């Protein structure tokens, strides 16, 4: 009996799910409740059926990047494996599921238990998303010996160095800034300066996605933003959705005639993503990404540095901010010794890059030796998972 492989990159904001042979479906990893629909909660992509997305209430399985609310996670997983989303026969499927670096052992045990005892999958592989990204990158660049994966996610940012496909655990750096913090901060300053939007996480997240960018010269952009509107190339108006005529907001030039409510976006456009480069701007006493990259490689042997710096991979939803790659390149360049060449790879779709790595790994001849089979789990329990899976 030939088993198929299903890859589930279980992110804190979106889960990327699909058969290794198909394309991934991006599913919001949460249950949402709307004010307008009193009768039912929306699980994952069911939210597309909701007409009025104002003041959505989120129930997330993850807290600070780790699964804490198992009832919600189980409900979303049930949805993912249901007829509605990705119908598969779990008992004949091997699942590749991702977990964050330094995942806690009780979470790992719970995950394994649910998959083997409740979903009854044929076999399971638990792996870091950065390892899948590394595999994907090595597949595209077979000559690259080392790489640094920067995963700018929803809950946090991880910098993970790999030397000869081996994760250098001591070099992993976590910055507690991710998409969620950026959205919440934008919500806070918009609510104070203009319009109360504290309840509108969903809409403000779209405002962030549509209008924010990474500045190439921060203080110069600040000067431009100070100018009056006619000379200011940064200031824009964001037309808010009203959910009758406009379902998703959009950016326009200031002064455009519109009946809808608008938010004026000026220095907010670039000071929000700037927090990833300077967490201290909001009082988080941690390094920004470029500095943390340098801190991370210092743990690795010096002879690997040129290889690591020449192969930086940028993944995660926040990597989609325009200008991110260029700015990161500029900042790392200024911190790294000048004899080293620096190259940053921004994939076409940074959100599904790790999933695609998982899909490639499923075809690897080694795949079957990486997984834990149901029989092995039934024989040896959790211990076999600790032996086989890389923590």
């Amino acid at each position, binding site marked *: 009996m030939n088993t198929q492989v299903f890859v589930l990159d279980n992110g804190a904001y979106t889960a990327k799910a699909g058969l290794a042979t198909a394309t991934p479906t991006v599913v919001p990893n949460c249950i949402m409740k*709307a004010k307008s629909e009193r009768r039912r909660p929306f699980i994952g992509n069911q939210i597309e059926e909701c007409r009025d997305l104002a003041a959505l209430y989120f129930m997330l399985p993850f807290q600070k990047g780790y699964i804490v609310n198992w009832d919600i996670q189980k409900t979303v997983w049930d949805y993912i494996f249901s007829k509605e989303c990705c119908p598969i026969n779990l008992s004949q499927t091997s699942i590749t599921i991702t977990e964050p670096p330094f995942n806690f*052992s009780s979470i790992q045990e719970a995950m394994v238990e649910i998959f083997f005892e409740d979903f009854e999958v044929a076999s399971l592989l638990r792996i870091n998303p950065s390892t899948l990204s590394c595999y994907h990158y090595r597949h595209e660049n077979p000559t690259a010996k080392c790489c640094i994966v920067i995963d700018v996610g929803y809950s946090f940012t991880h910098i993970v160095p790999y030397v000869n496909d081996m994760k250098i655990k001591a070099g992993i750096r976590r910055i507690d800034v991710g998409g969620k913090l950026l959205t919440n901060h934008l919500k*806070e300053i918009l609510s104070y300066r203009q319009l109360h939007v504290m309840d509108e996480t969903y809409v403000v997240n779209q405002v962030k996605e549509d209008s924010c960018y990474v500045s190439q010269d921060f203080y110069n952009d600040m000067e431009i933003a100070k100018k009056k509107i006619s000379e200011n190339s940064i200031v824009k108006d964001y037309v808010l959705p009203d959910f009758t005529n406009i379902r998703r907001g959009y950016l326009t030039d200031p002064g455009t005639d519109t009946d809808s409510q608008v938010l004026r976006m000026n220095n907010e456009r670039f000071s929000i993503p700037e927090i990833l480069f300077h967490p201290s701007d909001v009082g988080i006493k941690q390094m920004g990404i470029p500095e943390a990259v340098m*801190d991370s490689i210092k743990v690795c042997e010096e002879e690997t540095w040129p290889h690591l710096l020449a192969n930086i991979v940028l993944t995660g939803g926040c990597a989609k901010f325009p200008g991110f790659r260029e700015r990161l390149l500029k900042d790392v360049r200024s911190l790294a010794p000048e004899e080293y060449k620096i190259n940053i790879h921004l994939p076409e779709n940074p959100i599904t890059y790790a999933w695609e790595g998982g899909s490639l790994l499923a075809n690897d001849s080694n795949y079957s030796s990486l997984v834990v089979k149901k029989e092995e789990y039934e024989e040896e329990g959790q211990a076999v998972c600790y032996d086989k899976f890389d923590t």
Partner: protein
Amino acid sequence: MAVRESGRVKDAMQKRILDEDARKRRQKKALEALEQDNFHEDPHADLVMHKKAPKFQDDLKNATRNKRKTRTADYFKQRFRKNFAQLVEEDLNYNSTVPNYTTAQAPPSAFPDRHFCAVCGFPSPYTCIPCGARYCSVKCLGSHLDTRCMKWTA
């Protein structure tokens, strides 16, 4: 006999100034707010399902699974209940091998902090004396004093 004293000095003495600890507490609170999932209450919290209402989802589940009784989502809530703080503590106590979650945190930056106006977001050279917030101009100081200094009205 009334003691003669300067009105300006008297005013300054009366002004409450937040101490270092209180400022740190405020900062911590602001950071915790940035981690919140929702700022409003569950819109369905007061909703009571009618007892006789058909439960469609349960029927679907029973139909697709084999005869073994499937566990409900609530079972897992009971089975694995540990909050984030408990998980970190457990990790520190029972799995103290370095590196771990706690040691992977990026260390503080070597670069000095940058300061931005708490009102408009532009670079700010001044600090509000009572609460330590930053401001960039008299206009912004005015808004700050009216709304957020030592109180929280907006």
